[in-house]
């Protein structure tokens, strides 16, 4: 049972923000989301806020997933949600990765990024399945069967 058989495909924008070149995480996420039936637009590493917004607008994205591993995420995400609002983009936004230099207090990091406007904030230990389940919940869809078929215990 594939997601696409039951409803409109769900489009997810994926990218690493700023000057960051860490590509492993989004490569894995891209594979996992595609296998679960999402339409994935992977913008790759070193993606600007403007590139995220343009892609979200062009593909009428349901969700925008921002990745950052190098510790400069807070600076890179300043004004991002204001930009999305100006472009009339109403997508669910997630951010995940190593969001601050040193991850001693994740609750504080989460609060910082929530305040910047992200709907959810994930640490670097998050599995692709958790992201998929979170998207299902936030977007009101089900991909559980497709996913379960791929990942046998």
């Amino acid at each position, binding site marked *: 049972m594939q997601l696409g058989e039951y409803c409109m495909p769900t489009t997810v924008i994926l990218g690493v923000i700023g000057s960051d070149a860490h590509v*492993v995480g989004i490569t894995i996420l891209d*594979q996992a989301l595609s296998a679960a039936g999402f339409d994935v637009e992977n913008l790759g590493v070193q993606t600007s806020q403007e590139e995220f917004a343009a892609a979200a607008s062009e593909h009428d994205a349901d969700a925008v997933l921002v990745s950052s591993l190098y510790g400069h995420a807070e600076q890179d995400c300043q004004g991002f949600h204001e930009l999305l609002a100006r472009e009339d983009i109403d997508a669910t936004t997630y951010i995940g990765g190593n969001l601050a230099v040193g991850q001693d207090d994740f609750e504080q990091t*989460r609060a910082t990024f929530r305040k910047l406007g992200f709907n959810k904030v994930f640490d670097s230990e998050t599995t*692709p*399945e*958790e992201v998929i389940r979170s998207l299902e919940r936030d977007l009101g869809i089900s991909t559980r069967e497709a996913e379960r078929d791929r990942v046998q*215990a």
Partner: protein
Amino acid sequence: MIRDERLTADELQRIDERIRDDWPTGAAVDFEEAIAYHESLPAHKQFADVLESADRPLLQPRAGVPCLDDQVSLLEHLHGEGAADLLPTTIDSYTRDNEYGKAQEGLENARESGDATLNGFPAVNHGVDGCRELIERVDAPIEVRHGTPDARLLAAVTFAGGFQSFEGGPISYNIPYTKEGSLAQTIEHWQYVDRLAGAYTERGVTINREPFGPLTGTLVPPSIAIAIMLVEGKLAATQGVRSLTLGYGQVGNVVQDVAALRALRKLGNEYLRDEVCVTTVFHEWMGGFPPDEARANGVIGLGGTTAAIARPDKVITKSPQEFQGVPTKEANAAGLRTTRQLIDMVVEQDIVLDGVDEEQALIERETRCLMDAIEAHGDGDIAQGTIKAFESGALDVPFAPSDAAEGAVLPARDDDGRVRIFEWGELAIDEDIREIHQARLADRAETEGRKQSFRMVADDVDAISDGKLIGRPTGSPDTGRDGGETRAD
């Protein structure tokens, strides 16, 4: 159109004059005067001679801080307390982006505040005289280690500044490090670096060049790394480089690592012309490290053991603080001593590993497939062949952030922990070899009672930092974290 041809003296001079205008310190570069300077250095600071005449694997850490005095004391510590044989000077990220103005700002901040405001030594800003002061005050050979796609000015300044070894290359400092830069452009830029190294070499000052073997540092199949080392070696040799150190990053399976290092040395000597002296460098594990320092020492120890069996000419060491990022000088020295202890204990032993010859033969066959494909794509020209093979996906690097590579190839470990290829993309490897990889991955899937999937790739990427080699499933994939924002276990 860029081709694998030696730059003429006129071309070298024309680029040289232009590139030296990029930052004021470029003006102090004088080739003839620099030759005389290098000739004045004592024998134990002649990098290529020290490396090529060694009778045991030499150890080298990574290290770079912004200010000159601090860099001197850091290197003295690693030489004294860590017993490093060869020293590094790691260059900061602004310099790697050719942002010399920002590097200057960072350097001035560091001088005022005493903090390490840059993540390395801005050698261009320190200029020829600053580099020479470092070379003179530290009593061992020093290499420039960086990650700079366009390293022309860095090479001009550091060669004139007395450095005799320079890491990097047009593929290995492009594909893993940037999104946009084209291969045609990085090949052109590195032709200048290599030609300059060649010009010094012809005057009796050997500049050692070291292509960066680990690439993306994430489960890179040995044959892909080796093929890229051979390409960069050939491009450098065309420009007159005569001392080449080809690199390979530890994957953690001892048999595969020993086989890969032997294949690298053998194919390096075969593919590179006779007048080139080929040495090899083994990088201790470049992927994610365990956060626990005791476990991290275990990973480093396995690297030392592997090096003792495979006997590369050089080992780049890691520190037990790798997980946190840039280590203290004490931790960096500890990584050197752990490695030395393991090498010196194991190197005396005659250890015969089952399966090394077979694995080496497989790696060599795969590498030859890739080299033949590059040759065919370029109609005999290796520069064009490399560009076109990356375009078609015949040559590819897993987890490559660069648009210049397909990045379609995905690796996964087999049931023995050796890195195999799970997704092939258009990689130019013969069908019968693909079947071997597929069979090994099928064995693992059977052992684990799950289908082959990207999930294995993801599990393998995290495995060593989680305390294992292979990313085996740990019970139910439903770990109780159900998409809510939970903190990591």
